[in-house]
């Protein structure tokens, strides 16, 4: 799940982890009540600072995506359909923004980008 985590990125690791879990919950990849790995397990598995994982979990809790139960662990909350949809929309916009910025650097015009988008998506839905 965390294969895209990149310590060299300017986005802090805790933001990357929280974002990945948020979209997993929004997409139904993780379901309500499911337990997340412990801070210790995930830190050891990703070889990152446990404080980073704890920060990601705290942020997710503040957003209402997970619940931290003292002594029991961290569990996926029951996020309403609307909240999940909003998160997916947010993430989709984020992906497109990144693509648009990259295209801008490469001097690809919005028209070219739109045409490419239609071409790729068109072939996908067939």
């Amino acid at each position, binding site marked *: 799940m965390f294969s895209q985590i990149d*310590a*060299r*990125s*300017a986005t*802090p*690791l805790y933001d990357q982890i929280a974002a990945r879990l948020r979209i997993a919950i929004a997409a139904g990849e993780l379901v309500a009540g499911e337990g997340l790995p412990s*801070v*210790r397990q995930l*830190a*050891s*598995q*990703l*070889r*990152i*600072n*446990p*404080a*980073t994982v704890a920060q990601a979990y705290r942020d997710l809790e503040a957003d209402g995506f997970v619940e931290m139960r003292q002594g029991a662990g961290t569990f996926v909350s029951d996020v309403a359909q609307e909240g999940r949809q909003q998160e997916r929309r947010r993430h989709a916009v984020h992906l497109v923004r990144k693509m648009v910025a990259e295209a801008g*650097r490469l001097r690809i015009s919005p028209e070219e980008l739109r045409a490419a988008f239609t071409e790729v998506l068109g072939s996908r839905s067939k």
Partner: protein
Amino acid sequence: MSDAIITAALQYRVGRSFEISHLDLRVPTGAIYGFLGANGSGKTTTIRLLLGLLRARAGTITLLGQPMPARAPEILARVGYVPEQPHLDGTLTVQELLQFQAAFYPGWDWSLAESLLGQFDLDRHRLFGKQSKGQKAKTMMLLALAQRPELLVLDEPTDGLDPVARRDILSALLEFVAQGDATVFISTHLVHELERICDWIGVMDNGHLLVQEPLLQLKRGVKRLQLSGLPAGATPPAPATLLSREVSAPGMETWTVRAWEPPMTGSIAALGATVLMETDLDLEDGFIALLRAFRIGQTR
């Protein structure tokens, strides 16, 4: 939050030139502090000073709230140390080393030692001298962790190891950190490893501490900027500083800056200039830019 390591105006020298001059280190309790520097920058000397293996010419050292070297025995019982070079008796077996070490440390944890033996896949009956490089490094790390130290000092713990041994050692270290609030002081020139695990960074060069701040703050502030329409001799607004400047045409410059903040783009605009592109640097590029700037400044 208290600090696990504090040095004030620490000085050390051999012969005429200073090896360490006016070193003010501050390592917050619970931090994983990455002590970065090229070979020969003074990292190992600093560690030896901290642990009382060398005597400072001037300055003070406080470890875990107590003065070094005055209170060395009490302090060192709470400190784990993994030196750069294997330092253990090669004619002892791993089991004998464990028993020897256990006798010195009140907090020694046999169940952790046993579980690490399994996790590291070490043969307890093998002589230390007959172990591979990776096995030696694991044995040393095991000995330091099983002490359950409050402060762990690691000098290049994974340098020259294969990726598998390196991964095993880092995983064990992080698992240990997650269990309590131990402080880890880790010296290395392997920048990418630090970028994953550290929350504080100190950069040493030529006996000077160039930078000491939280990793996120350091990374957030180091940028490469492409600028146009710049008046000659313009510099970034304080507290940002210029690490390097390349002039490609009049008014067209590429800056590498430190302590940059997004609102500063406005100050650039006020000069009549434009930031064409802003690139984030990773820790390694930032580290190299810092060292270059410092070294150029010194030779001037």
